[in-house]
């Protein structure tokens, strides 16, 4: 019997992972570096609220919002991804985050979410993103697409006018 075990072990090769001399295995569900998609973000700031480590920060400026996530205080819990309705934030499987001290403050994920002018009155506002509209209305229509680019006030006026 022991010959069989010996043969098996010989065929299996070493149990040690080749890394750093070769590739390392990474599980598909591994929670690594955070990726942010500003085009899908609606700036609800839920990610900032649920962030256990306080790594996510939104800075509001007159013409938009700046999203910042510092990987050196992120605990990779994945709560931001879990609670993001617009699917703008997700954790990739990239775990190559070790870095020299000089690059300490470069380990950030940034994104710029610009305000857009309302098509009717021109007031700056943040339109709902297509993924969010699909989630809310289960599909796009011309009417919804037109309403999407209006500020809440103009939307209200148009909706009231349509019904009367």
């Amino acid at each position, binding site marked *: 019997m022991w010959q069989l075990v010996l043969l098996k072990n010989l065929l299996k090769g070493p*149990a*040690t*992972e080749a*890394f*750093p*001399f070769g590739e*390392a295995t990474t599980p598909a569900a*591994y929670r690594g570096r955070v990726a942010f998609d500003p085009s899908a973000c609606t700036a609800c700031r839920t990610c900032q609220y649920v962030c*256990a*480590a*306080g790594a996510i920060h939104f800075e509001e400026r007159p013409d938009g919002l700046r999203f910042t996530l*510092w*990987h*050196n*205080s*992120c*605990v*990779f*819990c994945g709560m931001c991804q879990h609670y993001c309705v617009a699917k703008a934030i997700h954790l990739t499987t990239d*775990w*190559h*985050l*070790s*870095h*020299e*001290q000089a690059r*300490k403050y470069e*380990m950030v994920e940034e994104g710029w979410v610009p305000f857009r002018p309302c098509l009717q009155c021109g007031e700056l506002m943040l339109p709902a993103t297509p993924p969010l509209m699909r989630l809310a209305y289960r599909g796009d229509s011309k009417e919804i697409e037109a309403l999407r680019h209006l500020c809440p006030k103009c939307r209200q006026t148009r909706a009231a006018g349509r019904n009367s």
Partner: protein
Amino acid sequence: MSSLSRFAGKSPWLYRINAGSCNGCDVELATTAIIPRYDVERLGCQYCASPKHADIVLITGPLTTRVKDKVLSLYDEIPNPKVTVAIGICPISGGVFRESYTMSRPVDEYIPVDVNVPGCPPRPQAIIEGIAKAIKILESRS
């Protein structure tokens, strides 16, 4: 002695300082050392028990106020040249304990850190990657 120091980078000795860690990163450090799957000794490293023998210092934990003086005196005992690696987000930024009254400021305000390995805790391969970077720095210093 100078001719010997050329080889120091080939066999650096690791020394682990727990600066108030939750033990998560320490478990991952133990994993890199004793589990054949990761095996940090392939890089020529070995964990040592005395700070006087160390070449690469691995610091875990957010540096609590109670342990701060002990960590600093221990760090001074390690002979130069030495390379410091901060393991986990706690020594790098304070991590989830950042605003606690029992924490000192991040480790790099007291100790010159060379390599950071973020994670909570970082996976063993990431720690090995960080140690590999530290070995390169050690080779340039010795």
